[in-house]
């Protein structure tokens, strides 16, 4: 399969990219690493009239950090995290997650912003940014706005990005030295998208605890209460995880339920080995 004919733009600045995108209206599309969009173009599921390539933009490859947060440009690639080329705000979590995305060839081109904008519920960054309580900055012709990760994903493959808006950067609250995280994904095969993802992040210094169930057919499910009670007691022994997961995923098949319970349980175990 080959794509439909399209114009290709390679703007020299972010503001030019924004104006080109708004000029093309609904018929324009951003391309970053092309690792999700490429197949969709070839299958003609995406039929844009223009592609605006943002991969080269310096403004989207920057890292800014302060005491409380680190902010990553949307065009930073998975390998940049994996290889430690950008500062890690999360005690190794983002680096670990990046290294588990697909295969190296995909990680060489795929970007964090592309992954988030694509909003595959099984994508690693989608689940990780929610677990870390990230904030996204998006830029359109009418200006900038920020959105909490948990509000960004509206459904599978749908986000609250408006037409003409570009995801500019991702702000991650720093995890303190006392923080711990667990990340477990179940894949049918290495390098494939997950069947289930379980995440636990606890950061007592910041009073933060969050558990996430990912790779269901819907956006990631946040289980803050569960996480809080695990963090408080320092164990998940007294909790019937399977029941909690079932309540969170009422429509899941028995296999999917088991997968999600196990993923979460193993993520918890990484934080609180029993």
């Amino acid at each position, binding site marked *: *399969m*080959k*794509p*439909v*004919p399209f114009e290709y733009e390679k703007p020299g600045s972010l503001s030019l990219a924004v104006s080109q995108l708004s000029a093309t209206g609904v018929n324009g599309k951003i391309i970053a690493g092309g690792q999700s969009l490429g*197949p969709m173009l070839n*299958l*003609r599921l995406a039929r844009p009239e223009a592609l605006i390539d943002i991969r080269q933009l310096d403004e989207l490859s920057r890292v800014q950090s302060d005491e409380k947060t680190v902010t990553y440009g949307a065009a930073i690639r998975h390998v940049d995290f994996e290889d430690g080329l950008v500062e890690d705000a999360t005690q190794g979590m983002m680096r670990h997650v990046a290294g588990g995305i697909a295969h190296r060839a995909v990680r060489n081109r795929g970007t964090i912003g592309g992954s988030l904008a694509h909003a595959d519920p099984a994508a690693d960054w989608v689940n990780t940014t929610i677990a870390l309580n990230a904030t996204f900055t998006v830029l359109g012709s009418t200006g900038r706005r920020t959105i909490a990760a948990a509000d960004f994903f509206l459904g599978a493959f749908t986000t609250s990005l408006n037409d003409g808006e570009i995801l500019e950067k991702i702000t991650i609250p720093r995890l303190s030295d006392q923080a711990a995280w667990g990340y477990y994904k*179940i894949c*049918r*095969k*290495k*390098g*494939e*998208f997950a*069947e289930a993802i379980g995440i636990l992040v606890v950061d007592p210094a910041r009073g933060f605890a969050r558990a996430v169930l990912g790779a269901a057919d819907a956006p990631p499910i946040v289980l803050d209460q569960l996480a809080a009670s695990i963090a408080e007691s320092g164990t998940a022994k007294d909790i019937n995880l399977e029941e909690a997961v079932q309540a969170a995923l009422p429509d899941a098949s*028995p*296999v999917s339920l*088991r*997968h999600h319970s*196990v993923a979460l349980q193993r993520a918890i175990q990484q934080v609180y080995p029993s």
Partner: protein
Amino acid sequence: MLDQGIGARVLRKEDDRHLHGRGQFVGDLAMKGLKEVAFRRSSLAHGRIRAVTKPAGTDSVIITADDLKNVNPIFADSSIPGFKASNYPALATGKVRFVGECLAACIADSRAEAEDLAESVEVDIEELPAVIDSLKARAPDAPLIHDDWADNLFLTTSVQGDIDSLVKTAPIKVTRELRTGRQCMHPMEGKGVLAYWDFQADQLVVYTSTQVPHMIRTGLSETLGLEQRKIRVIPPDVGGGFGYKCVLQPEEIVIAWLAMTTKRPHRWIEDRREHLTAGANSREHHYQITAYADEKGRLLGLDAEITVSVGAYSVWPFTACLEAAQAGGNLPGPYDFQVYRCKTFSVATNKPPFTPYRGVARPGVCFAIELMMDAIAREVGRDPMDVRAENLVKSTQMPYNNVTGKHYDSGDYPASLKQVAGLIDAPGIRARQKAPEADGRLIGVGFSTFTEQSAHGTKVFASWGIPVVPGYEQATVRLTPDGGLEIRAGIHTIGQGLETTLSQVAVHELGIDYDQVRVTLGDTASTPYSTGAYASRGMVMAGGAVSRASQELARRIRRIAAHLLQCKDEDIRFEGREIRAGGASLSFADIGRAWYLRPEQLPEDVNTMGMEVTEGYKPQVDTGVFTYASHAAVVAVDPETGIVEILDYAAVDDCGRMVNPMIVEGQVLGGTVQGVGTALFEESPYDQSGQPLASTLQDYTLPGASDLPWIKLGHIETLSPYSAHGIKGVGEGGAIAPPGAIVNAINDALKARGVEITQIPATPERILSAILAAESQQKGAAS
């Protein structure tokens, strides 16, 4: 000549170009004015075509079935009584019968533009109920795929053994229902064809990615109505075949027709999506089996019903009967027992037409019989390895005629099992199983032994009465004036390294330097007719032909050399890459020069046929020479996720004389990896309306390097008494055994949980479902 001849690990002649990216595949060919073609394909599995309409102004660049009026449909009949052949038109007429069937060919300067055109074709099809499940397709009230048939059965066959007596007397009876998934073959290079008209030769020239160039010429001639002398088929480099490229394809006919009628070059290259949908054409079997055994697990009889979901049409030349015929014939495997009853059903379904895939039917039947063997062992409470060993045909019984009349020529089957068990340290695994694993996973070990009928010949194929029956395989060898050797054979190399191994055979016979040998394969203009590369026949058949032809060339060289050296023919020795007698020697160049350039030096009685020999060959029996192998797998199953890791894997094969052990190892490794795919990963599922659900490689998972352990190999070398140099085929075997070994290992691991997997691929989902079902049953029983 062990350093270069038969038995040597010489590097492959093919690899220099392939490793430097200089191969010439259909996609690499460039030609002035070349048009690219895309096909508009059916998006429905079953329907009546009301209209296929070209938009205005596209008459000459869109070709529909109406334009192909003078083209005959593919028609592949069999003489087996009761077989129903189908008309398989190059572009669908009347009805569509599977998703992906070609409706129109669209022509443009680039593939992307051709696809734009393909989208513009208006297709009006009245949808009909699809026939997807092969068991339901057998029902009397199932919708008919071919309207003029009374049912959906291409063929039923039956072997009647006296099972009834066993039903009453056999102490052990084990019944299972087993299934194998439908698969795509996934050669790295998909299909591809380019055709143009050569005005000088007044010939249609067809470059096609095929295993069977000479048969394609015959097939194109029959469908296009063009005489064979006016067609030249050239197979360029072929990036894998596996059977996918051993039949005449509708796209080949359409591209050839376009070149023939427009006299302009046209090309079509299959993409992965076309392959995943229109090419899901193999492996799908269903088994209902009962095995009868004594208290020790000694097999007494087997009663089986095999249903193959053949798809919509009968493929040329192998027909729709080959798979089930092979399945019914090979199910008894390497085992020694006397009573066999088997019924097979070759069922038409609304899926792509079945094409023989590496191992043809045997990966399915091996899976089936090997699971039965383990089920019997569990039933009698013994180690499956012991039960298997006791049931295998023994070396003292060779040659052995099995219950279906297959003539096993040589070998020591139990020895292969013993050796493979050693490679994976079976006793060590049994000891390890006594204690739980630290990570909670369950360890299991499984075995699988099979025979691989290779190079089966005239009588076997004639008994199926298919359109082309292989006979004598021919090869030409020719000494060049400067002492080089050219080999030409009509078979083709599709990755299996025949340029290398055929050279080694010639080196063995003539003692000529390996680097002085060149091989040309497949081109119908310059090579003798061959039915091509399939059925693990290349090394046995073409190798035998090269051996014969080289021997004759050696006789002729001997005569000239004896004359030049003034000695007797029998004093001549081929040694040290020279031709010697006593202390004197000649080079091959001396002989070439004498024949071609200085004929005054030749003896009076020289053979006037000269330095070029074409010889034909077939083994002493037509029933094939039987390679065999045992595989062993050690797996860890995560009972909480259903994920399987192969911890260890080993294969011990016996393919007679190994012409190049490195290539044999490559064949076994590559085949084994495909078999791992069959066992754990690969499947083309369909929904009830006949839509293929795996249309990208995200849904259709292939095994990757990270899913495999280092595969250990062992060999036994028992020469076949029937073939030149005792060679047996090895092309398919690797792919046959893994599903049996791996699923047996999984079932061994899950034994204590009362779980048995009976369907492949054994995905985490299937394994976990079975575990959950067993859990809830146990809960139910407890409460």
